[in-house]
Every structure is written in structure tokens, then in C-alpha cells.
């Protein structure tokens, strides 16, 4: 394929091929469903269809994540001219029944059906995840049939690079990695830089423990990431792109590598794209387990094969980045928004969400909830709507106590503030952050000082050790939190902890240290009573310390 017409042809061909089947069986093949036995379900359905001799009328697709991970394996049946039917908890036996009764017999299997009007689905708005559960991520044709790569084609053939920057700017898209920096402004900075060696980088180093939005996007719609990155390159004048992926995500790496090969074969990457002068190539770089590599300068060091230690900014990467050349780093989810923005327009996108936070946000909804999984909601939805309607509330008769956003850099939102709008600024005002999208719901069994200790331990382990406030401060704070959790703390311990929070926050070199105190500050702010309840008189604390020390040395 070398030009726009071919892309159109391919779309037509794939759509016709798909339409020829009477029934489509979409089986969720995401990591979560696979660990719940989705492969066996798929095999059971396939063999049941084969036994009935109808396999040639049925298209079986192993799709990406359908969202409701806690009810997997999920299977969706699409019949020509009929409504989609979704099934949950489909084990092998249920898969067989669905194949025989529904696919062959035309009768819906009621006891496994999950209504698509269920609030978990009805309250969502899908932009980034529009292809999830719809396409086979291993086939470029399916992405193209759903309008894929038309945004890149139209940008290259009908728009100037500055025009593309302008659309992204006007859409109001902000960085989805957590910072919330306006994407269009960043693109504008790289576009202005003068160099013939610019690079664009997709940050897929999703380090927040409890979040898997970016993994799902890379695994289940890899071409969307490539198209977003190619658009960024066209807009900014970059020729080379990198996707930095955590080593913990081997499937994402495999799917992206395959997607790059397919895109090259269809001349959607490489030289003279769509018969223009524009040339763009992408390489994948794999991390090796370092949270700090989510930080821009550390990530670039890691791409260059070095220790992932950050350096002071400025100069910002858009001035001096990879190998000293101007570079730009965007989060995977940020880039995944761009193809849809280009296709549907900046005004359409800006119409979703709130005045300062446009568009949608993908959250990994987890913790003490009935429905957990991956959701995409318009910004401005309230936390209560997410927890109670989409999440189905807290199970086992427990009470919703707080939600944690932003992982080790974020904070908690207590139930009294559950009606807050989920947008960048409201969350910041509450002492939390939007973060990359981890949203962990806690019930009244969870003790907040222990949550703070958990995150501090994480930051301590992940501190790169370059600057003292972070290296020593996180260690010291962890010891203090340990003392608080184990009844060895006095009122002075608490005071010392607060002073340290301030020092580490203001004096650390990079975002890891600067935000490490956030979980402590936020839980202290809203749940101070839990900390104070654990404080003991100095004599008791001293005795407990002696006991703990002798136990350790015994």
C-alpha cells in the first residue's frame, strides 16, 4: 500500500469479509481473562461449532480487554442484524452451551447473560478504548477497517504539521501519565526546535503498582499507539520514534513488535509515507524494572542503555533529549487519544469532560468493589458514580472509606469528598492527583497508616539514590511509619514525619521524591485520628522499641 486509495480498498475488503459471516463470536483474550481460563473457553466454543459443522459461518475473534475483568472470561455474540449479547463467567461448559444454544440454536443463554445496559458499561464513554473487545489486536486489517490510519493519511496528505499541532492544542488534550501538561503545547515546543534528529517517545513504563491502562492499550490496540506516535512525529518533524515498555509486559512487547512489522509491510511506517517526503521509524525499548524510569530524563537514560537516573530540568527534553537531540515524551494513553481526535475533530473532543480537563480518562478500577476492571469515563464524573454505579459498590456489607488515585505519587480521596468531580484540578485541590489511572477503592478494613507505609516502602525501594533527600528521606520516613504502625511511635515521631515530608517534597531532584510524601500527607490530612490512635507515651514506645530490637537480633 502506498497511497490513500489503497487504505480505502483494504477497509472495504475487510468489512466485506467480516460481513460475510452470519455470526461473530468475540472472546476476550486479555491477560486477565486468559488467567481465568479464556483459552479453554475459546477452544470449547470452537470445537462445539466444529461438531455441529457450522464453523465456516462463524467468525471467531480473540479480542482485547472487554473491561469487566472480575467477571471473566467474557464472550460476546454478534449476529447479523441482531443486538450484541454479552456473557460473563464463561467457563468451558458454559462456552459449549452458548455455542450450541445461542450460536447454533439462536436461543440466548439467560443465566450467563450480562446486560449491556448494566451501569458498568452504560456509564462509560469510549474514545481510547473504542476498539477494545472489538478487534483482534494481531491483525492490522481489523484496525484499518475501523478507520485506523485514516487520521495519519489525512494529516500527511491534507494538513501541515503546524495544522496538526493546532488541532491537538485546540482539543485541550492533557498528558495522561499523571502530570496533565497540555499535549499541544509540548508538541509545539518540539516542532519549534531546530534539528534534523528529533525523536518522539511513547512512555509505556507504567510503574504505578495497581494500574494497567497502558498495558491494555499496547496489548489490545497496538496500532493506535503507532498511529498516535506517527502523528506526533509528523506534527513535530521527528523521524525516529521509540516505545519504552516495561519488561513486565512481554505480551505488549510482542504485539507492538508485530504491529511495527505489519505497518512497515503496508508502508504505514518507513520512507515516503502516503507518497510524501515524510519518513518515520519506530523501535521498541524494554525497561528492566525501575519505577523511576517513568520520569522523562530517567527514561531517556534507560533508552540509551544507562542507569535510569534523572537529571535536572531545564534543559527540557524538547531542547536537549535523547543523545542530546530535541525529544518529546508522551504517555501511551495520551498518544492513543490523538488518532480519534484527528478523525473526529478538536471540537468534538473538547465537548467531552470539563472546561479544564477535556476528554475521557481510563482508570484501572480495583480494590474492594463488586465490579473491577478497566473503565473509560468522561472527565468530570464523580468518584461516587464510579464506585457505586460502575463499580457496583463495596461488597460484603462493608463501607466505602476512601479511594486512592495516582499510586505512590498520589493521595486518597475520603468518602466525604466522593462527590468531587474527577478532573485534574479538583483532585489536586483535594491533595491527590489524577495520576496515570490507578483507582483503588478501600473499605473500612483498610488502615490508612499501613497504606502510607506500603507506598513509602515502594518509594524507598524505587528511589534511584542519586539525590539525598529522596534516598535518605524515604528510608527515614519508612522507618517512622513502621514505628507508627507497630506501636513504637510517640507524638514526636509524628511531628518528625511531617517535617520530613516537607523536606523530601521540596528538595528532591525529580518527581519521584517530590511526590513520595503525598500518600502520607494525604492520609494524615484526612485520617489523622488513625495516626494519633497509634501514638503511645514515650515509655511504652521505648519498651516496644527495645523488644522489637532484641527480637530482631535474637
Amino acid at each position, binding site marked *: 500500500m502506498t497511497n490513500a486509495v489503497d487504505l480505502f480498498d483494504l477497509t472495504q475488503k475487510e468489512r466485506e469479509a467480516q460481513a460475510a459471516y452470519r455470526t461473530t463470536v468475540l472472546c476476550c483474550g486479555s491477560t486477565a481473562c486468559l488467567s481465568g481460563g479464556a483459552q479453554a*473457553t475459546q477452544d470449547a466454543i470452537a470445537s462445539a461449532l466444529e461438531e455441529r459443522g457450522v464453523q465456516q459461518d462463524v467468525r471467531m475473534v480473540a479480542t482485547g480487554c472487554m473491561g469487566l475483568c472480575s467477571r471473566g472470561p467474557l464472550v460476546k455474540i454478534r449476529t447479523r442484524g441482531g443486538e450484541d449479547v454479552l456473557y460473563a463467567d464463561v467457563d468451558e461448559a458454559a462456552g459449549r452451551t452458548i455455542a450450541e444454544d445461542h450460536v447454533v440454536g439462536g436461543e440466548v443463554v439467560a443465566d450467563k447473560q450480562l446486560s449491556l445496559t448494566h451501569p458498568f458499561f452504560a456509564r462509560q464513554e469510549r474514545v481510547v478504548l473504542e476498539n477494545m473487545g472489538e478487534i483482534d489486536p494481531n491483525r492490522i486489517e481489523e484496525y484499518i477497517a475501523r478507520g485506523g490510519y485514516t487520521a495519519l493519511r489525512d494529516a500527511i496528505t491534507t494538513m501541515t504539521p503546524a495544522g496538526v499541532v493546532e488541532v491537538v492544542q485546540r482539543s485541550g488534550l492533557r498528558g495522561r501519565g499523571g502530570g496533565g501538561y497540555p499535549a499541544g503545547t509540548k508538541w509545539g515546543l518540539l516542532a519549534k526546535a531546530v534539528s534534523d534528529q528529533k525523536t518522539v517517545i511513547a512512555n509505556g513504563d507504567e510503574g504505578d503498582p495497581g494500574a494497567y491502562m497502558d498495558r491494555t492499550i499496547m496489548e489490545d490496540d497496538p496500532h493506535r499507539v503507532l498511529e498516535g506516535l506517527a502523528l506526533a512525529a509528523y506534527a513535530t518533524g521527528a523521524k525516529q520514534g521509540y516505545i519504552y515498555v516495561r519488561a*513486565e509486559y512481554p505480551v505488549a512487547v510482542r504485539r507492538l513488535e508485530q504491529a511495527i512489522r505489519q505497518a512497515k509491510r503496508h508502508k504505514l511506517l518507513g520512507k515516503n509515507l502516503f507518497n510524501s517526503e515524510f519518513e518515520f521509524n519506530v523501535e521498541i525499548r524494554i525497561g528492566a524494572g525501575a519505577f523511576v524510569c517513568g520520569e522523562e530524563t530517567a527514561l531517556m537514560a534507560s*533508552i540509551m*542503555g544507562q542507569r535510569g537516573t534523572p537529571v535536572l530540568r531545564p534543559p527540557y527534553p524538547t531542547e536537549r533529549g535523547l543523545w542530546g537531540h530535541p525529544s518529546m515524551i508522551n504517555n501511551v494513553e495520551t498518544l492513543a487519544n490523538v488518532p480519534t481526535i484527528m478523525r473526529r475533530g478538536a471540537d468534538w473532543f473538547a465537548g467531552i469532560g470539563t472546561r479544564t480537563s477535556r476528554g475521557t480518562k481510563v482508570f484501572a478500577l480495583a480494590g474492594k468493589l463488586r465490579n473491577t476492571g478497566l473503565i473509560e469515563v468522561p472527565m468530570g464524573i464523580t468518584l461516587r458514580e464510579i464506585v457505586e454505579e460502575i463499580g457496583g459498590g463495596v461488597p460484603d456489607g462493608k463501607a466505602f472509606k476512601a479511594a486512592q488515585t495516582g499510586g505512590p505519587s498520589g493521595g486518597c480521596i475520603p468518602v466525604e469528598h466522593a462527590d468531587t468531580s474527577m478532573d485534574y484540578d479538583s483532585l489536586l485541590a483535594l491533595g491527590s492527583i489524577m495520576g496515570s489511572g490507578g483507582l483503588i477503592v478501600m473499605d473500612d478494613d*483498610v488502615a490508612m497508616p499501613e497504606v502510607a507505609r506500603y507506598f513509602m516502602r515502594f518509594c524507598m525501594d524505587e528511589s534511584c539514590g542519586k539525590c539525598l533527600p529522596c534516598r535518605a528521606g524515604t528510608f527515614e520516613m519508612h522507618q517512622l511509619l513502621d514505628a507508627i504502625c507497630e506501636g513504637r511511635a510517640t507524638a514526636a515521631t509524628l511531628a518528625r514525619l511531617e517535617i520530613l515530608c516537607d523536606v523530601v517534597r521540596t528538595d528532591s531532584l525529580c518527581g519521584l521524591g517530590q511526590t513520595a510524601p503525598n500518600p502520607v500527607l494525604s492520609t494524615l490530612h484526612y485520617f489523622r485520628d488513625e495516626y494519633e490512635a497509634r501514638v503511645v507515651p514515650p515509655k511504652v514506645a521505648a519498651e516496644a522499641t527495645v523488644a522489637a530490637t532484641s527480637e530482631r537480633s535474637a
Partner: protein
Amino acid sequence: MTMASEHAAAGNAHSDRAPVRPPDDPRAALLNTQLKKVRYRADALIEVLHAVQDIYGHLSGDVLRTVADALELPPSRVLGVATFYHLFTFEPRGEHTCTVCTGTACFVKGADALMQGVSEAFGVGQDETRADGAVSLLQARCIGSCGLAPVALVDGVVVAKAKPDQLVAALRAAGVDAPAADGDNEAEAPRRSDDEAAAVVPGGAA
């Protein structure tokens, strides 16, 4: 490790890119292929270290020295990068591994209990390999299956919504015995039924 001094004694090995020795070790051939694939580029160091770990199971001083020579990097730089990243390991792993996810969702849902259950049943500490090399108990930052928390991996197989007993049963089924030292009560305990062990096999999880 005394890589730097030994390397200095070895003289300048940079000028000719001698193949990784010994040549009759099939693992060395695999590493050579990998080095060729990245065209001996120094910035591919992390990829090469991943390859070494895949091929050899862990990073040993000898192989790191070889990598330093092949990529024309100071050994200090290779060791510096290798020790910076958590996924690289310098000790051989146990025959069987149990990796407990310690992400936030798993933490909230009781990853600690999983860790403790396995640790007590098999006498292996967190992030450790038992002295007899039978089993390693490791933690993972987050494997991204938060909807199924708490999650653990037994020899790479995901156990969703895991319970301590389930992990213990799975490891026993894999052939890991109770620790030798205080194995009296454990050794006489009946092995878990196959049904429980089957729950960890993909497809068997309810």
C-alpha cells in the same frame, strides 16, 4: 565482585571482538547471536542483559565481563546498569518459584497473607531462595491483573484471586516439600487433593 581489576589484568580485549568463550557452550552461541543482532551497540546494554538472563538464568560475573568486552564498555558501567534494575538477578533461582504480586490492589486484598503463608509452609524468606534450591519466594511489583487481585504466579502460571492454601497446594503439587529442618509435622501432613491443585492450571480456575 572484582571485575574491574581482573578486566584490567586481562589487558585490552576491546580491539578484536572475540566470540564469547567457551565456544563449545551452546549458551555462548545464543549470546553471540544476540550480540550480533544488536550490532554490538553499547546502548543496547539493557537488551543484552535481558538476553543473558534468559539464556543463563541469572547474571554471573564472568558473563558480565564478556558483555563488557563485546560492547566495549567499562565493566563498572555494565555492573552499574545491571544492579540498577530490579529484574536482573545475580543468584540462580530455585527450581520452582512462587511470585506474589505486591501491587496496590493485591496489597489491599491481602498479598501479605499469601507471602506469609508460603513462607511459613516452605521455610523460605521473602525475596529468597531456599538453601536447598528447591523454591524461591519472590514479589512482583504489579503484573497488571488488578481485577483479579490478589494474584500470584506459581512457576509462571497465574493464580487469580489467590488464597494462601491454594499456593501451598500448588507448590506441593509441583513437588516442593516442606523444609528439611522442621519438617516433622509438615511431612506427615496429607498432600492436598488434586482438585485444589487443579485450580491453578489455566482453565481450571473457577
